[in-house]
């Protein structure tokens, strides 16, 4: 359902060209749990931006549900992000001074869903990531790190996305809460969600069922994890 074909990404700054991705091809089918692993500078963030329709590749094609999205305009990409992609960030990126519920309904506001319906969907989503109902009306900056990241996951889920992209979701969490977040992803995957996890830690990548290793903009390994 998503497929990248010979993708290259070149950054230019002045006269210097940096090849962040060199001719990468792979595909991810529905229901997979894939970890993309690599040291910093390996191109994994660039790859995530392209997979998340935040950036377009310099060369090559990106098929999202069979449709080539590599040459779409900014607003067309925004539409795909709105309807099909859920993001989870390392730094959570919740709106401070806004309640948990308000943060969670935000993507639905951009999708023009009615207000009453929004709240219902958001509450369901928050419960599905195991967040206590008592916290729904707390401000997001009053929550612990693990709770914040689960709110962010709930926010990523409200649009019923085709794919969830998590960029170092445990990077700002301690090992124990990190584990809880990773378990949340595993539960979601068991429910049939497609999850792509970007990380530089091997033990985190092992939570996924498949690992794609990047180095210097190239895939060096694409294996199925056995647990």
């Amino acid at each position: 359902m998503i497929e990248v074909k010979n993708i290259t990404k070149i950054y230019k700054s002045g006269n210097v060209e940096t090849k962040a991705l060199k001719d990468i091809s792979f595909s991810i089918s529905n229901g997979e749990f894939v970890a993309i692993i690599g040291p910093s500078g390996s191109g994994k963030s660039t790859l995530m931006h392209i997979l998340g329709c935040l950036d377009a590749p310099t060369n090559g094609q990106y098929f999202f549900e069979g449709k080539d999205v590599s040459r779409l305009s900014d607003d067309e990409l925004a539409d795909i992000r709105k309807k099909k992609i859920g993001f989870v960030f390392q730094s959570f990126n919740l709106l401070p001074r806004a309640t948990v519920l308000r943060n969670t309904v935000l993507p639905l506001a951009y999708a023009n869903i009615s207000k009453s319906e929004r709240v219902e969907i958001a509450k369901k989503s928050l419960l599905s990531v195991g967040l206590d109902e008592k916290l729904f009306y707390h401000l997001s900056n009053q929550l612990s790190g693990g709770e914040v990241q689960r709110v962010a996951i709930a926010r990523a889920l409200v649009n019923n996305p085709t794919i969830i992209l998590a960029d170092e979701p445990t990077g700002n969490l301690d090992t124990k809460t990190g584990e809880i977040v990773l378990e949340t992803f595993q539960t979601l995957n068991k429910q049939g969600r497609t999850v792509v996890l970007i990380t530089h830690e091997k033990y985190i990548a092992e939570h996924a069922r498949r690992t794609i290793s990047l180095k210097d903009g190239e895939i060096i390994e694409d294996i199925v994890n056995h647990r």
Partner: protein
Amino acid sequence: MLITDLFEEAYLAIWANKIRSGLTILGIVIGIGSVIAMISIGQGATGSIETSIQSMGSNLITVMPGFQRTFSPVATGRGAAQTLAIEDAEAIAKEVPFVQAVAPELSRRYQVVAKGKNTNTQVVGTVASYPNVKNLEIEQGSFISEQNVRSQSKVAVLGPTTRNDLFGEGIIPIGETIRINGINFKVIGVTKSKGGTGFGSQDDMIFIPITTAQKFLAGADYVSTISVQAESSQLMAQVQTGITNLLLQRHNIANPEMADFSVLNQQDILGAVSSITNTMTILLAAIAGISLIVGGIGIMNMMMTTVTERTREIGLRKAIGAKRLDISLQFLAEAVMLTFLGGAAGIILGSGLAYGITFFTGMATKISSFSIILAFSVSAGIGIGFGYWPAQKAAKLNPIEALRYE
């Protein structure tokens, strides 16, 4: 995004920075408030000057003496000539078409005494048609009659202020005697108050027959002005020309530029005064408008800061599907809401100021719906104008860089 969402977001963002938003709004409040106050002062002044000119009589044309032309090269100054006579007034009434009424006047200030009290006031010698020409009404007794004028009667009609000064308020002085310049006059009436104070108030006057004034007070047979009422405002210009031609002919003057009189049209005076007060209003509003522009720059400054501060938030919003338009509308809504709040408070402040000015100084002010509509559209315009650039800056942010922004 729904419009209600936009305004909810804007409200929350403004509320989140109460002090900063408040100070920014204050700039707009002061700007709009001073524009409203200034326009209301200007329009109030225009209104009160116009009504006081109109209260002097409707469709009024005034003939005044000009320079006294003598054989010496020394001019005596406008108004000093003693060339207008009662016969001129009679001729105007008879020969110029579309004239409703004519009232010649001879006025001068005299010391007036009654029962030990005395005052110094304007004594107007005039004829029976004067009240019609000058929109004057009689409160008690009667005005000077034609018979009084013919027989040079020593009778006087008092203005209400003069009555108060000489006899006291609420007293009916009919039949009493007053002394003007040492000559006894019998009071036969009191005029109704027309309001207005200070120089030229028709409330502080004494009216006597013009013939009496000429014979016993001035000792000369000239008149100081002739007031002419035209039949309608459309005929003013025609009557004015008629009077000019007639008087030139009567005074044997061939060159109109050498005329020893001048004919003033009330409409011309009104127009001149209105144009002065309108210019004043515009000037005042323009000065106040400068503070509005400064307020607008304050809005822009705050929006720029907000956009920079919330770069990550903008990145996130874009990542979850906000389009450029969504982002720019959000920040525009915020700017417009700031200026609208400021505009509303400014209208209240400006109206309060105008009311306070009227209350404490007695100066007339007028808050027109025009100035309120103007203030509202200007404040909305400032919000859009000064918010546009920051909103565009936000909308154009690259989501990846915005998300990484520290």
